[in-house]
């Protein structure tokens, strides 16, 4: 072996060591089945905003919501914003789009579900568009690797709901999501921030497990149907007259302050306040 060939071999082997250290990313693609033992949708009763740190304006909007809105033809297929990714009962089908020359990942896509649009995570360094750009259900998402954690940032989501029970989200809402992989588990944590309706960031997480069974990358098409006239206005309640405001109290003994999402109720010391009453 000539000296040049020998040196080349040494460099190649050292490069393997070095490159292995520098690119500590994890495989994100595949079918991931939900494994959480948590009730993340939180939509068992109409007024269940427990655990959501709503501000006063958010609470008023939330209490004015009526699920009958979903009977309106124009709202039947509206779907839910990107944060439904962490709350819904579904798994995730994730695939990548690769630059065929350089081999790098241009984007990841998380497939759709029945009432959730697909999400594209741009990995090519492109900037977020102007704040006046179009807002969509899934928003605009970019991602970067921090070690072996994928960190994504989502903006440009249409105004929607933090929870199916009507807790609102504005079109200024942002979502920072971290994808951690531990063995065959994928842990997804998201931090939702909304200067309009939240008093502080809302942190949620869920777990999924790698599945050998392929998951569908698309949801079934949404087909609207006429469910009868709801009159001239969208169904709603005057916030102070929501007939379901005490359902959580009657059924589970949850104090009203907690049911309507007062921020102090997400901290442990609120248990002492409850005990003192």
């Amino acid at each position: 072996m000539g000296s040049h060939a020998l040196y080349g071999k040494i460099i190649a082997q050292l490069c393997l060591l070095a490159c292995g250290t520098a690119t500590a990313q994890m495989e994100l693609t595949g079918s991931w089945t939900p494994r959480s033992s948590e009730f993340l949708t939180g939509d068992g009763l109409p007024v269940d905003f427990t655990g959501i740190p709503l501000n006063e304006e958010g609470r008023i909007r939330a209490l004015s919501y009526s699920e009958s809105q979903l009977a309106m033809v124009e709202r039947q297929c509206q779907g839910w914003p990107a944060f439904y990714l962490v709350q819904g009962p579904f798994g995730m089908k994730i695939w990548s789009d690769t630059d065929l020359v350089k081999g790098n990942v241009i984007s990841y896509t998380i497939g759709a579900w029945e009432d959730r649009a697909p999400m594209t995570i741009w990995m090519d360094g492109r900037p977020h568009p102007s704040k006046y750009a179009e807002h969509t259900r899934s928003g605009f998402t970019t991602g970067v690797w921090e070690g072996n954690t994928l960190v994504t940032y989502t903006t440009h989501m249409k105004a929607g709901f933090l929870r199916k029970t009507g807790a609102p989200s504005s079109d200024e809402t942002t979502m920072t999501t971290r994808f951690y992989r531990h063995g065959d588990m994928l842990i997804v944590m998201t931090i939702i921030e909304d200067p309009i309706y939240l008093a502080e960031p809302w942190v949620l997480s869920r777990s999924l497990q790698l599945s050998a069974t392929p998951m569908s990358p698309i949801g079934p098409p949404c087909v609207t149907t006429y469910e009868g006239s709801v009159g001239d206005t969208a169904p709603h309640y005057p916030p102070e007259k929501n007939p379901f405001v005490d359902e959580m109290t009657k059924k589970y003994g949850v104090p009203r302050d907690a049911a309507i999402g007062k921020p102090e109720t997400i901290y442990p010391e609120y248990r002492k306040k409850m005990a003192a009453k």
Partner: protein
Amino acid sequence: MRVFLAAALALALFAIVPRAAGQAATAKAGATIDVTGYWVALVTEDWRLRMITPPKGDYSRVALTDEARKIADAWDPAADQAAGNACKAYGAGAIMRIPSRFHITWQDENTLRVDSDAGMQTRLFHFNSAAAPAERTWQGYSNAEWQKPSSLKVTTANLRSGYLRKNGVPYSENAAVTEYFDVAPLSGGGQVLLVTTIVDDPRYLQQPYIVTSQFKKEGDGSKWDPTPCTAK
């Protein structure tokens, strides 16, 4: 040739120096993340199952075996309290799900200590993998290891049988608890600790019980409020 040698040397340094730095003499010196400090639970999920004691028989979303369901249906908090078992819901299988503050410190160079103010429990995460003692306790015996690039894995056994929820949803003394600790920044300079808890218990669980819990870092212990375990 000189170019080759220079390149080889540079690459060797790039590859080897970080590894040498990673081979720390103690667990404390080799920590891949800093989990120490005061952390407060953010009860943003499962609020009614965590902040208030659920009614007897509410074991929704827990895949119990028939034997475990009978135990859950026979839950008697007064009997637990009287028998000195008020801490059954504060064991390692559930403690990180309890609304509490946690204070994480280094007990020594190879042992992390986790104290809770709710239930006043203490967990020790051993990085030097000593043999577990025979005695079973609420917190069991925990082995810990740093995971590169930035995570902490803890496995716990030698547990006393306990509850996954305060309403008597059981795990057996043969349960094994695996946890992952991850830290993330929060806007405004804060930090979030994410703890993934996986409870394997072939006797009482048909499949692993998996929850992920969030905690926010606090600047000091001014809100630390030790309170004893309660069975109800």
